[in-house]
């Protein structure tokens, strides 16, 4: 009995899902041979179960990257880690735990996953393309065993009922397959189409991501407000630069820009006093070799697009305009010096290197702390209490000797190498230290002098070009569309049968079937039945055989056995 029902139902069900069937090969079979084994492995790899395990492995493998510093995200933290735990760091490095996303094991998982995906989706796409060209199967013999079923008797002609059903199903945009006494309709092919589109789009996202990583080039540049020398997009102009393996320097776009003005506002009140509220950089930029200068604005969330390159505002700070005269009275240094913020109130540090002094005079180096709103704490020393220039001051000590610049060894512009230098001392032998406010000049013990001419803000720009962004975006849009279709469209079939009954009346049967979860099949069949009644009114009941009630009761008995025969969906 139950076998009969199954066979009947399978026919009605045929081709409704292209999900891969569970593997019928047994791993223990000895006579497989090499080809057999390959076949078996391929089947395993493309099975849903292995895909599932790979998905879980992929998320598991991503976890370390959030707990251990990553070279690609913060190389500084990685070197710090090496300093603090050399043994452990060495071990982690061997396991590529500082480069999770470029490690061989992470790559192995996602490559296997995508191979599995392709191996699964290509046959499914093929099967689906065939299903799209196939008519829905004819009505099963025992329609009352289908998940949604209704029947009634009518005085209308069978052919007229079927014609009406045809109109109704067509209106509902079902694909139709008529036969002599029945009509089959199917709808919801977009479910599988969406599923396939989603998975193919994921491949698109991956490829776009990889292309972006290979061809990208990005770097940072600090510009001081109002400085006449701006930035021109060439490799040498960057403060730092990272690029992908296939980045071509010659492809860099010709453009440049200057920072005209930088507006900054900070929270003045409450517990978040000092927190940044708004940064706005006004720049003058030009495109092409002789492009006309244009004015643009860059904010934190509003980058400036120049050609295919985007310029982002990443950080800000203060630069000090300094003039240094050596002991012979020659202006040995003049210009802005960038100080780097050390805390949220912009207590900043920086150095001033004065190599170009008069003949016979030692080079000078200054080590300074700058506070935009200065305050002195007995324990902390000089520090800033607010990030705006409310009460700016520069606290300096100075050295003389050799800066070590001429040795050819590259130096940081933010650190003073005092190996070959001596600190200036006051008459009492204490180190020379002074507080300078804008406009003030201090004279060093040897007669040289330093003037703080003014304070200007600087902005740190990130200039980046990452091809493949658009492809990634379109792929993702396609993926979400496919996902929505594959989750919310229901694939279903409906059948209407109209046959002449023994009493001369026409027996109408309507049934629906879906393999998709989610409600609504009952309502949908009911709506069809209600619409069909107009053309096939229920015959007035004068005998027990007409009317739906007894049929329903009988069907209910069958329902339990159908529910018991669970179907495998994979």
């Amino acid at each position, binding site marked *: 009995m139950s076998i009969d029902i199954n066979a009947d139902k399978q026919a009605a069900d045929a081709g409704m899902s292209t999900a891969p069937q569970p593997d019928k090969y047994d791993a223990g079979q000895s006579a497989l041979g090499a080809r057999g084994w390959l076949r078996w492995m391929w089947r395993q790899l493309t099975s849903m179960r292995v895909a599932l395990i790979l998905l879980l492995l992929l998320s598991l493998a991503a976890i370390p990257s959030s707990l251990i510093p990553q070279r*690609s995200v913060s190389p500084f933290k990685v070197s710090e880690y090496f300093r603090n735990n050399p043994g452990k760091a060495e071990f982690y490095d061997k396991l590529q735990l500082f480069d999770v996303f470029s490690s061989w094991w992470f790559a192995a998982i996602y490559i296997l996953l995508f191979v599995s995906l392709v191996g699964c989706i290509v046959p499914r796409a093929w099967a689906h393309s065939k299903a799209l060209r196939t008519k829905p199967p004819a009505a099963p013999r025992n329609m009352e065993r289908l998940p949604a*079923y209704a029947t009634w008797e009518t005085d209308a002609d069978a052919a007229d009922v079927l014609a009406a059903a045809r109109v109704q199903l067509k209106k509902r945009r079902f694909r139709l397959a008529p036969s002599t006494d029945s009509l089959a309709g199917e709808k919801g092919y977009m479910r599988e189409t969406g599923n396939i589109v989603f998975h193919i789009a994921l491949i698109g996202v991956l490829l776009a991501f990889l292309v972006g990583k290979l061809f990208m080039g990005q770097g940072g540049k600090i510009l001081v407000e109002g400085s006449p020398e701006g930035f021109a997009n060439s490799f040498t102009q960057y403060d730092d630069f990272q690029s992908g393996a296939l980045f071509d320097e010659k492809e860099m776009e010709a453009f440049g820009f200057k920072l005209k003005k930088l507006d900054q506002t900070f929270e003045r009140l409450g*517990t*978040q006093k000092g927190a940044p509220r*708004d940064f706005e950089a006004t720049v003058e930029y030009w495109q092409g070799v002789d492009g006309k200068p244009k004015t643009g604005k860059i904010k934190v969330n*509003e980058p400036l697009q120049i050609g295919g390159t985007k310029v982002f505002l990443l950080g800000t700070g203060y630069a000090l305009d300094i003039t240094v005269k050596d002991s012979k009275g020659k202006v040995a240094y003049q210009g802005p010096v960038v100080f780097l913020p050390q805390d949220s109130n912009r207590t900043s540090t920086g150095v001033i290197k004065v190599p170009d002094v008069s003949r016979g005079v030692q080079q000078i180096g200054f080590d300074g702390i700058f506070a935009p709103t200065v305050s002195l704490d007995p324990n902390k020393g000089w520090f800033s209490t607010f990030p705006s220039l409310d009460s700016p001051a520069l606290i300096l000590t100075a050295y003389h000797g050799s800066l070590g610049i001429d040795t050819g060894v590259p130096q940081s512009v933010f650190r003073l190498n005092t190996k070959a230098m001596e600190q200036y001392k006051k008459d009492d032998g204490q180190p020379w230290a002074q507080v300078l406010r804008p406009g003030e000049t201090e004279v060093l013990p040897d007669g040289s002098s330093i003037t703080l001419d003014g304070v200007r803000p600087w902005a740190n720009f990130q200039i980046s070009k990452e091809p493949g962004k658009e492809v990634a975006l379109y792929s993702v849009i396609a993926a*979400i569309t496919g996902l929505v279709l594959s989750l919310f469209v229901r694939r279903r079939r409906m059948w209407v049968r109209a046959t002449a009954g023994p009493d001369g009346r026409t027996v109408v049967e309507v049934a629906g079937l879906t393999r998709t979860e989610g409600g609504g099949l009952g309502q949908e*069949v*009911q709506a069809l039945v209600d619409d069909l009644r107009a053309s096939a009114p229920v015959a007035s009941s004068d005998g027990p055989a007409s009317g739906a009630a007894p049929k329903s009761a009988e069907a209910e008995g069958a329902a339990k056995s159908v529910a018991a025969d669970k179907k495998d969906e994979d």
Partner: protein
Amino acid sequence: MPTITSAAADAAETVNAVNENLAQLSNWFMYSAIAIYTLAFFAFCAEWVFGGRSRVAQQSAALDEVPVEVPAQAAAPVAPAATLAAAFGSAEPAAGAAGGGSVALAERPVVVVRDAGHDGDAADDGGDVTGGDERSDRFGRIAVSLTVLAFLLHAGTLLARGFAVKRAPWGNMYEFSASVALMVVAAFLILLTRRPVRWLGIFVLLPVITTLGVAVTVLYTDTQQLVPALHSYWLWIHVSTAIVSFGALHIGALASILYLMKDSYQKRMRAEDPKRRPWDTVMERIPTPASLDKTAYRVNALIFPLWTFAVVAGAVWAENAWGRYWGWDPKETWSFITWVAYAAYLHARATGGWKGRNAAYLSLLAFACFLFNYYGVNMFINGLHSYSGV
């Protein structure tokens, strides 16, 4: 000491001003909402307690053992208003439709729906908390009313905050938690207008009250303006979709937990001499495992595309703010992990050997990832998403 006072700074003060009255009002709303949610919770408790004493409940518990086929319910599509009325009013399932059907039978052929595994219409048994007890039912109605009231106050909290600072009210962890809790309740109430899920109320209020409690004690932040990184319309798009996803996924996780418990309970009951557990009185009154599993799936599947969109919107925003759309920042990494975990759940549900309990474990694992992505990443891991304000 000479002091430079810039005019720009004064101007900034007026721009960044926070409406303190509204901010205060928001806090009062919050405390009232928590108090009323707690009252609602007790009212739900009373519903369960009184319902449990009823003899009818004991009998219906026995019936509950067999997967229920409800062909009648599909006979006439139930209007949403009818179930909402049932939630506020009688808890009895809208079975009246079947009675009325006998009159209409001659005129209107009735569709028989079966095979609960493939059609939701048949599988929606709403649980039976009250067991026909009138007092229990009255408490259930009171509980739903109180929940609605608390929900309105709760929404008022966020509205007042939003107007106080003239921005989206989800700029720090306190506001985010409050919004998520609001969405959990919203998801429950929306579900309640469509299906008889009053039995779920007591379980929904647990995470809601906990989340709000943590929000006001640990995460509380004064009404403040935002750092420049958050000045973007993407705050409305990216964060709001994340909030709706997170809130609704609470319901999915709850359904999975209850599914696992009910499933164990039924297995236990099938034994020769079943051992009784104190919570069995709850277990026998919640819906069948099939129905709970289906609820979990429906919620998770409905939210998965939205969560995908939230992650993508975040990537687009990241491209705007930081110059790259994906940089494996801890928040991005954990969003990815969560997304993959939910994808695994959706696959598991269609894979032999993974259906049922294993899929439910995956649903919980994925939700745990989401929880960690919020609390763990924001509070214990340093990344670019450090906006907690704590």
